[in-house]
């Protein structure tokens, strides 16, 4: 149902320890966020693309599509950042002047926008690396080892599991409605969607009580203990991650404020 999720279960880095992947993604992301160094961002974008496409074996076309996904938000927001409105004649603004206000782009604004663009793409690459190689189940197991509240994690597990079930139900309802012309006009569409959502809610409610029954029959009394998959830590991977982070941090340190 979700391509990212499918790849998470079927990629070449599936058997790598989730802790290693998690640390690699988050440390790299932190360096990206902290360092206003375009070169670092560029290196990270390349590095993650390499890891995802070459090491994990995710098709390059799919990865490119994914990278284009957040562009609509990014371009809109970046527009808001770099467009300035000013009445001070001193600031160099490139754009039309309306009633004495200059509306346009400043050099500094442009630079800031570029910086945000690069930084966001780098951070997104880190997120993609994690979500394309690590199944949600393993992430939850990892968070359990990191001592997050078990209630929160159990809810995460249940929600993740039932997203797919509820989604399929919604899908079937939508198909059944549209085969009966439920979405032929805007008015019927609102009507149908309203019916769909309320029905989906009721179904989910009944399903939750059926699930409670089924789990009670297996001895549920309030906790959901489960056995986690075990993975082996790899010394080589840890050294690799350490070296990469060291290199990125060094790069950031050296080129801080570059090129201005």
């Amino acid at each position, binding site marked *: 149902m979700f391509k990212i999720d499918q790849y998470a279960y079927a990629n070449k880095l599936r058997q790598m320890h989730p802790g290693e992947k998690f640390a690699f993604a988050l440390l790299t992301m932190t360096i990206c966020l902290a360092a206003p160094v375009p070169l670092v961002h560029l290196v990270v974008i390349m590095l993650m693309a390499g890891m995802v496409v070459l090491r994990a074996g995710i098709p390059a076309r799919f990865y490119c599509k994914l990278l284009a996904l957040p562009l609509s938000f990014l371009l809109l927001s970046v527009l808001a950042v770099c467009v300035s409105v000013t009445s001070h004649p001193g600031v160099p603004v490139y754009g039309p002047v309306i009633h004495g206000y200059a509306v346009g782009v400043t050099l500094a604004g442009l630079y800031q926008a570029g910086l945000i663009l690069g930084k966001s793409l780098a951070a997104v690459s880190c997120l993609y690396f994690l979500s394309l190689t690590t199944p949600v189940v393993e992430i939850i197991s990892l968070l359990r080892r990191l001592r997050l509240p078990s209630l929160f994690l159990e809810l995460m597990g249940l929600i993740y599991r039932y997203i797919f079930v509820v989604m399929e139900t919604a899908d079937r309802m939508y198909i059944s409605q549209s085969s009966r012309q439920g979405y032929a006009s805007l008015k019927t569409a609102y009507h149908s969607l309203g019916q769909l959502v309320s029905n989906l809610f009721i*179904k989910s409610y009944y399903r939750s009580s059926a699930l409670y029954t089924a789990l009670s029959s297996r001895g549920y009394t309030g906790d959901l203990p489960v056995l986690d998959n075990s993975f082996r830590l790899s010394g080589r991977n840890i050294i690799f991650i350490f070296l990469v982070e060291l290199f990125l941090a060094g790069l950031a340190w050296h080129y801080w404020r570059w090129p201005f």
Partner: protein
Amino acid sequence: MTQFILEARDVYYKYPDGTEALQGVTLGIPGGGRVAVLGSNGAGKTTLFLHFNGILRPLKGGVFFAGEEVRYDHRSLMQLRKNVGIVFQDPDTQLFSASVVQEISFGPLNLGLSREEVRRRVEEAMAATEIEDLKDKPTHLLSYGQKKRVCIASILAMEPRVLICDEPTAGLDPAHAARVMDLFQRINRQGTTVVLSTHDVDLAYSWADYVLVMSRGTVVGHGLPEEVFRRQELLRQADLTRPWLVEIHEHLYRKGWLPAGLPAPRTREELFDLILTRGAAGPGGLAPVHIFPGENMRPECVLCIAGKK
């Protein structure tokens, strides 16, 4: 071509998740027929049905209704969905409304009919499916069998020319299943083409007048039931078994107990009748009518009579 009301020509379809559900399906549904589409889980039956209704659009190939290719614009789709109705397998995902009447009127109202016309159709559909007494009941309080009939009524009320039904008897007990199949028989007699998918070979054999066998996204065989179900290799390939009637008939005939030249029986009653009246005659010859011991006789007596014969 014109005798087919629905046709698929070399249809390919791949779901967004990569499943290649249809891989070059070419088939025709004869107008006015009772068609059974057979195949194991995941053979592509439901995907095919969604194409017949314009919900899915083939990646390659075309779907034809009454000889005309389906274009996927608004008007063409309206026309298609008006004429081809699908009853899905799980009644729970099809029923939305608070009451049975509201549910059945959903489709006709979307067709833009007048209130009176909708009311007439709803009543007719309820009468045909024998659910008049459920009229004001909330749909979620119905039993499984009742829900199934409400689903069928909600499609019937759109008065489609083709009624497609996905696994109509799944989850029903024998008595309810028989009622549903009776209903389809009646609908078909009134001129509606009825297509249904199933993996119950016995049911398909007794009911259908045309059979399509699907396996792994293609049609691997089609024809009259008595022909299709004789092809063991085909059935094996599609993960299906042979109908009881065909198997037992063949065994009796090989053994020499049933004469050749007679068509294979299509229902249990036909088979038992055949055993009763035709059994043990010489090849081709007419069997003498035995005086058959009644059900109330003790088994030993039956044996004696039979033994002496």
